[in-house]
């Protein structure tokens, strides 16, 4: 058996698992591991400027590929700085492994320098965690961590490594566990046959069906199967913020995103449906609005790999535990051949109704007052990237504008912090995307608030030549906070404005990148063209937009799904 140090085992295990990139930052407790990294070429390390960004980079990497993202940080502050990133991944079920250094075993509990109980700190926001106690256990712990992170409902896993066990001066036998099995962990992938039959019966009896697709369809790589089901039933499809792209947004059966800032036709269709097929979605409060008024006419078929998600918020009539891809295959098989003509006829009235809602054109907005509208920036971005870019987003109004005005035709192209709503996520996530797809166009839609939460990563972009395109919708304010203050607090803008905005163009230039400022609508198109022409450079587009634009449609609090404001003055 090969003999090596604990530190070498960490790196070797990563290599044997097939990890290509590690995002991290060195420090005392992990110096041995960093030394082991130095001696090899199989695993590339990306040095960030703040550990939170390392976690978001690993996250963006994972979201855009489906592969587990890897983070390596030191003990104490290094570890705690990743907490927001871990929580972000946890809320959105993103596979991630965080290797954190720890003080030597004999000093744990002594409040040693840079000591934090990382397993304890991260406990509520991880799928699982390990505190490794012996060097020989390192390969198995790390292999288990990757297995847990990317099977079942994916999620982040922390592996805490005390400094004494990775010590380079002691060697131990290395054995890579070829097969990881855990008696206490066996996720259910296939749906129960009886439930599948019941689901199909309910679907085929329905005259007003709708598919409600969430992030689970993306993690299960089930796009084609979901599309097949939708087409077979000729049913409308709506998507959660996390599910965008799982079903093509340019497909004629797509009625748009649903929920708080969903499209009118999507929320109307949900509210009036007689059967909802939920595929990997979790009835989040940003979808349902008032649960007591939620979809009163619908039989709900809830497909989810996590039994705990089913009937947590809204009771399911037909619960199906399983992964979206496996269950979709079972549903298709059970449906068998469906007479397309008869099925079309069955839902014809339903489509007529939906098309009426569509004709309201809820996404229309007013232009022409000399100010750049955020919506037109996203439309321009769509045009200049042929709708085929990876779009990472920060959190706020710009996020909703991007979700609504950039139709995603493919899964894994829309990268955003949906569950936790983490400002500062966008730039590092786009960097992770770019590391995973060096040839692709990786863009960030952000705002002047969010971008400043991880702006230090512009330096990392320089170091690794990441030609990211930053589309910053600059409204000199925290737009979404301001919108709520306009609506609920009589326009009292308590601390939602920033009156010491940096010169973003100069800032980008200071980091060695290109900065472009756009202030007039007529300059937008040309500036955007210039931005995407600079293929191998990072471009920071500082776009001065209308400060008073609100995101609409918007659900009315305590109402049903389809109780919505359609503009500052109109409501349903």
């Amino acid at each position, binding site marked *: 058996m090969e003999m090596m140090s604990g530190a070498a085992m960490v790196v070797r295990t990563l290599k044997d698992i097939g990890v290509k990139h590690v995002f991290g930052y060195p420090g005392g407790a992990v110096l041995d591991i960093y030394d082991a990294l130095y001696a090899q070429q199989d695993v590339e390390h990306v040095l960030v400027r703040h550990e939170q960004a390392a976690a978001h980079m690993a996250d963006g990497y994972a979201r855009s590929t489906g592969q587990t993202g890897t983070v390596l940080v030191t003990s104490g502050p290094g570890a705690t700085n990743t907490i927001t990133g871990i929580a972000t991944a946890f809320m959105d079920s993103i596979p991630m492994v965080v290797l954190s250094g720890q003080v030597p075993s004999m000093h744990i509990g002594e409040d040693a320098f840079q000591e934090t109980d990382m*397993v*304890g700190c991260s*406990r*509520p926001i991880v*799928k*699982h*965690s390990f*505190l490794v106690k012996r060097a020989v256990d390192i390969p198995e712990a790390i292999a288990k961590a990757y297995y*847990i992170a990317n099977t079942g409902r994916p999620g982040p896993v922390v592996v805490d490594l005390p400094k004494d066990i990775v010590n380079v001066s002691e060697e131990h036998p290395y054995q890579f566990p070829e097969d990881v099995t*855990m*008696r*206490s*962990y066996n996720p259910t992938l296939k749906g129960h046959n009886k439930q599948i039959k019941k689901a199909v019966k309910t679907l085929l009896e329905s005259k007003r069906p709708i598919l409600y697709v969430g992030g689970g369809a993306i993690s299960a790589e089930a796009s084609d199967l979901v599309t097949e089901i939708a087409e077979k039933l000729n049913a409308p499809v709506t998507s959660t913020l996390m599910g965008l792209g799982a079903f093509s947004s340019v497909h004629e059966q797509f009625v748009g995103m649903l929920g708080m800032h969903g499209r009118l036709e999507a929320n109307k269709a949900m509210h009036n449906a007689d059967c909802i097929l939920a595929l990997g979605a979790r009835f989040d409060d940003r979808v349902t609005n008032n649960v007591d008024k939620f979809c009163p006419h619908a039989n709900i078929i809830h497909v989810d790999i*996590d*039994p*705990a998600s089913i*009937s*947590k918020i809204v009771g399911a009539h037909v619960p199906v535990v399983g992964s979206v891809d496996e269950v979709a295959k079972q549903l298709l098989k059970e449906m068998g051949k469906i007479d397309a003509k008869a099925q079309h006829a069955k839902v014809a009235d339903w489509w007529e109704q939906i098309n009426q809602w569509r004709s309201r054109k809820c996404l229309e907005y007013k232009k022409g007052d000399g100010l750049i509208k955020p919506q037109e920036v996203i439309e321009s971005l769509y045009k200049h990237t042929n709708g085929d870019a990876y779009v990472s987003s920060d959190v706020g109004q710009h996020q909703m504008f991007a979700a609504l005005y950039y139709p995603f035709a493919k899964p894994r192209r829309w990268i955003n912090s949906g569950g936790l709503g983490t400002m500062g996520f966008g730039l590092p996530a786009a960097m992770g995307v770019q590391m995973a797809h060096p040839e692709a166009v990786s863009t960030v839609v952000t705002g002047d608030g969010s971008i400043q939460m991880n702006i230090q990563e512009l330096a990392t972009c320089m170091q690794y030549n990441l030609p990211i395109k930053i589309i910053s919708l600059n409204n000199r304010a925290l737009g979404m906070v301001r919108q709520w203050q306009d609506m609920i607090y009589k326009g009292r803008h308590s601390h939602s404005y920033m009156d010491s905005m940096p010169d973003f163009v100069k800032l980008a230039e200071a980091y060695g990148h290109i900065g472009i400022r756009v202030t007039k609508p007529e300059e937008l198109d040309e500036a955007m063209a210039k931005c995407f022409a600079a293929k191998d450079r990072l471009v920071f587009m500082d776009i001065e937009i209308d400060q008073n634009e609100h995101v609409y449609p918007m659900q009315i609090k305590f109402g049903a799904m389809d109780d919505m404001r359609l503009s500052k003055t109109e409501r349903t």
Partner: protein
Amino acid sequence: MRRIISVLMENAPGSLSRIVGVFSQRGFNVDSLCVAPTDDKSLSRLTIVTVADDKVIEQITKQVNKLIDVLKVSDLSDGHHVERELMLVKVATRSELVRAEVKRNVDIFRAQIVDVDANNYTIQVTGTSDKLDAFAHALSQSTEIIEASRTGVCGLARGEKALRP
């Protein structure tokens, strides 16, 4: 409604804190909790008594089951079961009269005196939580309870049903 949840989990460091975490994180309440390794030392069995409606119990069961270390979860109160709790209680016995009354109660409740001191008895009693409450109440009528310690409920399903890996 009062429920008894039985959990079979890996006897690994951190397992217990994860279970307790689920309860505090999701706002579930714990009336009592009892945990120890099973006949198979690699496993621990944990019994939680909680009061909640059916929907919350379903969530508790699912969220606990979701933990990686957990092998099996069952709601004992779903069917016939045996439940027991043990209490050690120290009472003041400063007069002959009190000693006699305490001894009578011990006999009636089929408890045992496990330690005797000049001025107090330590008594062990097992049974359902209700019985333990009743015993403590009876003692308190005739003397002063100095201190008491209860294990929390543990239980098993009756008949063939078993919680095994």
